[in-house]
Each structure stands twice: as C-alpha cells, then as structure tokens.
C-alpha cells in the first residue's frame, strides 16, 4: 500500500517542514514512511533533519545526465527514509522538475506513505508539481486571515488538479488565538477534516536550531504530542505500490513555462 501526500500551505512561515517531518515520524510508528523535500527552490528539510552535509540530494536526481540512483539520495534517519534537497541555486535552475515524477514512482515501491514537503507558492511548475502528483494534500495553516486564505487557495488548486484534501493542520497556535472558536467556523470550508491543532512551542524552534526533527528532539513537548494526535487522525488509504508507480509514470507533467 502506498499513498502520496503533498504537505502544503501556500505561504511561508507556517512550519510546513517541521510538520512534514513530525507527521512522518509519527506515521512511521505504523507505516514505512518516505519524506521528500519537494521544495526544490527553497530546500530546508536537510537542515531540520541534520543532513546539511548530504553528498547526494534530490537535485542530483532531477539533473539530466547525472548518473545517480534514487537510493544514493535516500538517507535513513529517525525511522524514516529521507530524500533531502540541496540548496544550490544553480542546481535548482538546471533541475528538471518533471523528473520528480520518476523519483516518486521509484520511491513508491518501498513505502507505505510518501510525504512531499511542498513549496510555499503556486507560481511555477516546480511549485505546483507536488500538488499535481500527490493523491491528497495535507494543508498546514495558522489561525490568521492570510494563512487561511492561502490554505483555501491551495485546496482549490489541488481540487482543480484532481488532488483531494486529507486533512488540515493548524500550526503555531497561540493561547490568545481562540482556536476553539476558529476551528468550528473554519472546518465547513475545507474538503477534509481538521486533523489537529499544534501549539506554538519553543521546542520546535530549539529543534530547528539543533538540526533535529521536533519529535526526536523533544518527543514529550506539547507540540510533539499534538503532531502524534494529528497523525493518528490521518486516514491513510490503501493503494498498490506498483499502481501508484505506474500512475506517477503516466501523470501529465507540465512543460517549463
């Protein structure tokens, strides 16, 4: 079984990468999980996962003519398979985003769940591709007007491309946010359930500075516990790995504009 989720927000600063790794680690207690940094223009998963010095990354897999196996860019960390992306701008410019399809198809053979940490924008091929390719999106938002607007935008983009919503996660929720009043009003607008609310937590910032995922750095922190609860609310759907690989291979992939 395998299901590919794009973890997306439509805006920066919502803690999308922290959320991707946290959900991944929590889901890895039940499933074989692969996390891919598909934010190829502004990669930062490697810093969160202590992989700053990774020799081979997704960029190498997306470059034409580079003789690199997908396995060379995968790293076993924190009970997950992690595919980091490099931060070199020249590599980003030369990378062919369409090759992401092949990479994910290959990864689907050995995974139950694939999480694609997606760009915080919708303006280019590389930015929309994870949302196009995924089965469903997990929307990471905050209880603010700009963040909710952007999450709704991503939901509509996803729907237009045939990608559903697996769940909505409120992150960086502060005491004064009145989240218990926001959630009931917000949920009617989303096509998937609100799977959790994660408190704004210094532990998340400390984990980032330490180059470790939150769930490894501070597993008992309030935010870590909230991510566990949210992961438990995500219903992972069964699909055949070969079917998904085949679907990825046959997916329509946008031309470079």
């Amino acid at each position, binding site marked *: 079984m395998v299901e590919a989720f794009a973890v997306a927000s439509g*805006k*920066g*600063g919502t803690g999308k990468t922290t959320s991707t790794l946290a959900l991944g680690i929590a889901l890895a207690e039940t499933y074989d999980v692969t996390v891919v940094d598909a934010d190829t223009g502004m990669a930062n998963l490697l810093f969160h996962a202590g992989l700053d010095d990774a020799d081979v990354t997704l960029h190498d897999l997306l470059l034409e003519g580079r003789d690199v196996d997908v396995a060379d860019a995968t790293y076993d960390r924190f009970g997950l398979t992690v595919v980091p992306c490099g931060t070199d701008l020249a590599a980003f410019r030369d990378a062919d985003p369409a090759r992401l399809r092949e990479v994910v198809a290959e990864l689907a053979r050995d995974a139950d769940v694939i999480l694609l940490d997606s760009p915080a924008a919708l303006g280019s091929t590389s930015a*929309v591709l994870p949302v196009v390719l995924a089965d469903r999106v997990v929307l990471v938002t905050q209880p603010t007007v700009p963040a909710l607007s952007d999450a*709704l*935008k991503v939901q*509509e*983009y996803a729907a237009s*491309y045939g990608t559903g919503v697996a769940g909505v996660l409120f992150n960086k929720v502060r005491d004064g946010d009145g989240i218990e009043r926001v959630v009931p009003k917000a949920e009617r607008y989303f096509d998937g359930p609100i799977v959790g609310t994660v408190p704004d937590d210094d532990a998340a910032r400390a984990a980032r500075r330490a180059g470790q995922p939150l769930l490894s750095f501070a597993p008992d922190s309030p935010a870590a516990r909230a991510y566990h609860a949210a992961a438990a609310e995500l219903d992972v759907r069964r699909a055949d790995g070969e079917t998904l690989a085949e679907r990825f291979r046959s997916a329509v992939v946008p031309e470079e504009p």
Partner: protein
Amino acid sequence: MNPGADFGGDLVFSRVVTDPGEALRRALDDSLTGYAEFVPADALLLGEGGDGIVAFEDGVPVRVRHSAGTVGDAAVAALALPGPYRVRFFAVADPPLGPDARVPPDGLAERLAGDPALAARTRERAPEGDDGTGLDAVEAFLEDEARVEEIRERAREEAEARAAELGLDGVLDR
C-alpha cells in the same frame, strides 16, 4: 533601477546586505515608518528578476509589492532569493501600497531572513488584530461566506489559467 522613486521620502539608510535580516532588524530596532526597496543581486547586476517595495509601520513590515506585479505573500516569495540585496529605506509618514499587499508581520523575517528570533520579535511589536491575525479578524473572515467563496472562486480560475500556462490541461479532468 530606482523602484522607490515614486513614493518620495527621506533616505534613512542604503546598504548592500548579504542577510536581509540586517535591514529588517535595523527597521525594527529604530521603529522606522516608511518603505524600503529590496533589490536582489540579479536585478542590481543583471537587470533580471525584478525587485520589491516593502512598507513598514513602526518597524514592522506590513505590505509588499514585487515589480513583477505580485503583492502580499506572493511578492515575498518572489523576493526570497539568495543575497545580497541592496536595501534603501525611505521615511514617509504614510507608507505606500494598498491592503491587498498586506503580509503577516513575521513574513519577511521568516521567508527572506529565515530568522525565527527576528520573526518572534517582529510579531511582538505588531499591533494585534490589524494584520488579520487577531481573533476578531479571523472570526469575521470565516463568517463572511461571500468573501471566502470569492477567494476560492478566484483560486479555481487561477489554477485553471495556470494549468493552461504550464501545459497542465490534461490533469484538469483527472
């Protein structure tokens, strides 16, 4: 290239910074009100990629416009490039740009500078509520069905237009 010329004001500082956080910190520490031009290296040296205008109120970045025509968060994303940037800050009492260019107070510190501590300090300084982050603003937004529907409708149109632009038409009926 002089994107700020239209808005006037007195030049407060002009610097080339590798870390855009330097300019954001200076604006915050000095509680500057006005606007800053952020000109990325590519725009400065090659005339490519465009630049941005950021309106500040009391040291907090509140509105952003990119020369490519995007506003708000999209403009911040367009500006988020590896440095250096040339930043010129002009003091004006009534900073430019309309409400559609509004950004969360910590947007630039997070996205451009990647500096969570600066983001936290900027959030603390930001007046509660007037940036769409207060509970009243969020509740009012969620109760305004017409406004939410308008955002969704516009996003659907954009997604379809973009699909055509990117050659993605084939997935629309998937």
